[in-house]
C-alpha cells in the first residue's frame, strides 16, 4: 500500500529529530537543514542512513544532495554555472530556487536543501520503487 504524504513527512521529521537532536516543532517544511536545523557535513550521511532504514530505500552518493564540486561544466570558481542550475533543478525539483539564483554559489547550495526537499526526494524514490 502506498504511503501517504503525511506519513512520509512524519517519518522524515522523526529522522531529523533523531539525527540532529532538534525539537519536532523546529522541523517545518521550509526549514533549511544546515542553517535552521544546524546540520554539519557528517549529519548528511547520518540522515541518509536513517532515511534508508526508515523507508527501506537505497541512497547513492550525491543522489539526495548533488555534489557539483568536481564538475567544471556545472560549477566554476565556486559559482554554479547556468548548466549547473539546470541540473540542480532537475535533481532537486522540490526546492525553491528564487533566492539561490540571485547568488548561485556552491556554498549557497545548502540553502536549497530543506525538509520539503527531503520529503519530495523520498516520495520520488518510493514512487519509483
Amino acid at each position, binding site marked *: 500500500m502506498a504511503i501517504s504524504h503525511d506519513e512520509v513527512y512524519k517519518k522524515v521529521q522523526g529522522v531529523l529529530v533523531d539525527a540532529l537532536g532538534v525539537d519536532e516543532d523546529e522541523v517545518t517544511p521550509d526549514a533549511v537543514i544546515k542553517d535552521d536545523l544546524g546540520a554539519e557535513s557528517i549529519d548528511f550521511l547520518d540522515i541518509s542512513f536513517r532515511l534508508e532504514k526508515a523507508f527501506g530505500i537505497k541512497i547513492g552518493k550525491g543522489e539526495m544532495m548533488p555534489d557539483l*564540486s568536481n564538475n567544471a561544466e556545472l560549477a566554476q570558481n565556486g559559482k554554479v554555472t547556468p548548466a549547473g542550475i539546470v541540473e540542480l533543478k532537475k535533481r532537486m525539483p522540490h526546492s525553491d530556487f528564487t533566492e539561490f539564483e540571485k547568488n548561485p554559489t556552491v556554498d549557497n547550495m545548502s540553502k536549497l536543501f530543506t525538509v520539503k526537499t527531503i520529503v519530495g526526494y523520498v516520495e520520488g524514490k518510493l514512487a519509483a520503487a
Partner: protein
Amino acid sequence: MRWIWIDKFVEFTPRTSAATIKNVTLAEEHLHDLYPAFPIVPHSLIVEGMAQTAGILVGEARDFAEKVILAKVGRATFHRLVRPGDTLLFKARIEQLSEQGASTTGTVEAGGELVAEIELMFSHIDQNLAGLEFPEHNFVFTEQFTELLKTYRLGSVVRI
C-alpha cells in the same frame, strides 16, 4: 603512552560485529585525574574504547583501504561507573556501511552489567571531504591497531 583503549579482541565477524575487552587497572595514570580520591574511567574514554573496537571493524570491512575517522557520537547513555578491577566488554555492530562511511551500535558491559549504550558514525574521509588532501598512507590504522586483530586471528590457530 600508547593511545589504545582496548586490550584484545574476543570476537570478530567481518563486516558484522566485533567484541573486545579492556582490563582497567589502578596503575593507569588517567584514573587519578578526574576525582583524585575516587578513581573512575571517564565516559569519554569508554566512548574511545568503543570507537576503537567499532573503527577497526569498519576499517576491516574495506581491507583497511579507507581512512576511518570517528565523525559523530549519535548517542551515548551511561548506566554505571567503571572502576579499577573492572573488565570492560565492548560489543560493536555495523548497522550501515557505504562508500562514504558507516554507522555502528554497541554496548559496554562489566561483570555482566550494562555500563553504556553507544551509537557512532564513522567517515571514510577520502570520500567525504572534497578538496582536502590527506597523506596517502593510512595514518588511522597504525600497527598498534592492526596487530590487535592479527593477534586475535593468530590466537584461533595457535594456543600457547
